[in-house]
């Protein structure tokens, strides 16, 4: 049995300890906002926060996540930074197909939690692990700057 604290709620899971956190979220808890993209931490679609740090859930065994605070896209809007990021994403119409955006938003929220007004170079560094095949990079960058301007003061 593995105890998993997801978005402030503790779940008890009877699963293979090696199951990646991604599939525990998606298949066991039916929280499908966190996406499967590559299975090798190469694309960032599966990004969640573990104890506040952006983490690729597709390579993190669920056992290694036990007892730690996991935040997913479903709850990130409940934080001031997460809400500022989502609002900026909507204002700038970032998503196209939208599939990578959960991961993009989780990475962006993590960046802004550490760096309130990131430079373009800091955005490049923090977001380079998140692929968008629709190529919405220009809007993602603009939205991060906008969220920094709107959300930084509140956080």
């Amino acid at each position: 049995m593995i105890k998993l604290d997801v978005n402030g709620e503790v779940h008890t899971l009877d699963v293979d300890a090696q199951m990646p956190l991604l599939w525990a979220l998606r298949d066991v808890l039916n929280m499908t906002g966190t996406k499967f993209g590559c299975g090798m931490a190469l694309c960032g679609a599966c990004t969640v926060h573990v104890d506040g740090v952006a983490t690729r859930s597709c390579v993190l065994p669920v056992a290694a996540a036990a007892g730690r605070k996991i935040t997913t896209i479903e709850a990130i809007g409940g934080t001031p930074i997460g809400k500022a990021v989502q609002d900026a994403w909507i204002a700038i119409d970032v998503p196209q197909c939208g599939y990578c955006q959960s991961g993009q938003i989780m990475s962006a929220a993590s960046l802004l939690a550490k760096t309130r007004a990131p430079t373009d170079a800091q955005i490049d560094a923090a977001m380079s692990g998140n692929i968008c095949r629709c190529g919405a990079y220009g809007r993602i960058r603009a939205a991060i700057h906008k969220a920094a301007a709107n959300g930084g003061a509140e956080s």
Partner: protein
Amino acid sequence: MSVVETVVDGADLARRRFIVSTAAAGGGLAIGFLWPEAARAAWTSAPAPADQIGPINAFIDIGTDGAITFVMPKSEMGQGVYTGLSQLLAEELECDLAHVRIVTAPVAAVYNNPFVPAQFTGGSMSISTSWQSLRLAGAMARTQLIEAAARRWGVAASQCSAELEVVHGPGGRRTAYGELAADAGKLPAPDPRTLKLKTPDEFRLIGKPVKRLEVREKVDGSGKFGLDVRVPGMLRAMLARPPALGATPRHIDDAAALAVRDVLRVVPLKAGVAVVARNTHAAKMGRDRLVVDWDIPAGSVLDTERERARYLPLSATESELVARSDGDARTSLGAADAKHLEAVYEVPYLAHAPMEPLNCAAHWREDRCDIWTGTQMQSPDQAAAAAIAGLPPHQVFVHTMLLGGGFGRRANPASDFVSEAVELSRKIAGPVQVVWTREDDMHGGWYRPMWTNRLRAALDRAGKPQAWYHTLVGQSIMAGTIFQGMVKNGIDPTSVEGAAELPYAIPNLRVDLHTTTAPMHVLWWRSVGHSNTAFATESFLDECAAAAGRDPLDYRRALLTGPKQARHRAVLELLAQKSGWGGALPAGHARGVAIHESFGSMVGEVAEVSLENGLPRVHRVVAVIHCGLAVNPRMIAAQLESAVNFGLSAALYGEITFADGKPGQSNFDTYPVVRMGEAPRVEAHIVPSTDAPTGVGEPGTPPIAPAVANALFALTGKRIRRLPMLRGGKFTA
């Protein structure tokens, strides 16, 4: 709450009251938007009471509570089609888009593409083919609502008008759509020929930068893609897939797979050997432990270098498959006083690599089969599923989910990812979701074909091309598929598109084609044949300009003089202006230009490049499109930004290779794509126009590879004639 819902069955239907149209549409309309019985049957497995349904306009539902629902016959894969089609409907219906809920259409003839008798999304033609019909559908519904109000008030309909979901009548009378919906539903449909559609100066929504309707569910995790489908009791499956085309299992050792926790069964299918489990993790663990001894048929071992070596001499031979012949290109090429140019341009196989790996959930039962997936090919998928399910097509229900990228991969006329799920569900008699890994997708074929192009030109003393001869060598996408009928005189139009319609004024011009066969499935990839032909033609024309000692943009301008090239000229002029063509650049930077027509639209792009640590770096791309009337400038700009980055990924990195049957790429480490730090600043501009709308989703992709290659030539003097530009992290020019 999500804007988009995919529930399409009887229970759902019964909750609604549909706006009306009983009579058949008047003549002259190729697509009826009236609801045929077969379509209604597709919507409802258990007939709802007639008084609750009413006759139906297939695209619009207005509830007695005023709730407005639009039915979307096209798949949303990021191109903004839900928003664009809703603008067309709402413009004439006179409603607020903020009040609209979207449901995805079931499979029915009423939702077919008017040019290809199938329900699918592709070819950048959703807006252009819906431009008349959906505005008419909106106008018909509005007319019925006004008529219902007029009758209620005892006045003439001509005295009434509609605005923002309210009908206004004489003396300040007003009634909301919801209160009129039931009455309007009983009225006969107006003859579309009697309806006058708005002119562009009257547009309230069309032409405006309307925001994406389904944006919220794409930022809060609630949007439902195919992989997010959860059906009670649904199992997961992953397949061991054949290592070569046509390979079949000689022996399967499933002991280790079955020993994995939560693995339930191993089921051989046509497409491979499925491991069925309670969750995706177990399915993958089991699949990876399956030992299959494959029987690989002779001749199915692909080696892409051997193919290249085979294509090269073929490209130097004439073919009888002539796609275009003006004047006498072969004789003119030999003119003694001419300057002669000859070059070979090559592009590789490409994977689409949409962010959402392929998947399909299916639930087969004896009397119905449900399919949940992100597909671009609803009616071919339904037909394929019906054959496998042993059911008539109307008992197969296709639930179209959001697509986590399509780029053509989810438009497979062979219905590969749907067929295997239906077959498995039938064999295990229960709901199951088949999931592909990234590696399955990258190894699994259905690639953009590899191409070899040989181009030859002869320039006169003034540097103008007098002859142009383009020979293409590669596989056909359409041959042997349900699109075989579009192959004319042996020529697949997607093989030569963009080459055969070369717009430049060249008196002697020949384009011919060698169609090859290879043990690899090929498929359309965003912009299809244009992704090859734009690179070959726009790079080679740049070679001609350089040989003539002319500015590449001026050279093009001088060759685009005909009456049919007015749109080209408009694009070139705006492009020159917005890019600052000819203006100063930072040291070590250079510009390149390319222009290409596809899907009815013209796109010109200017790329600004430099070399950083010896590697190409694209700083800025100015993209100009002429796409007729710009229904949603905001979405068009987004599509240009997208198309540039998509094409740039392929130009810089994209390549699928096989060495003696072994794939050279598996995931995003070996198949790199453009990431945040490499993405250029894209500036999108639209040529103002009131012409009927033309394609937007794909036309931005073809010009980027030649624009970048031409810029790198301007910078380095080296011509890039083979893609991708980087191999193994090294610049290959």
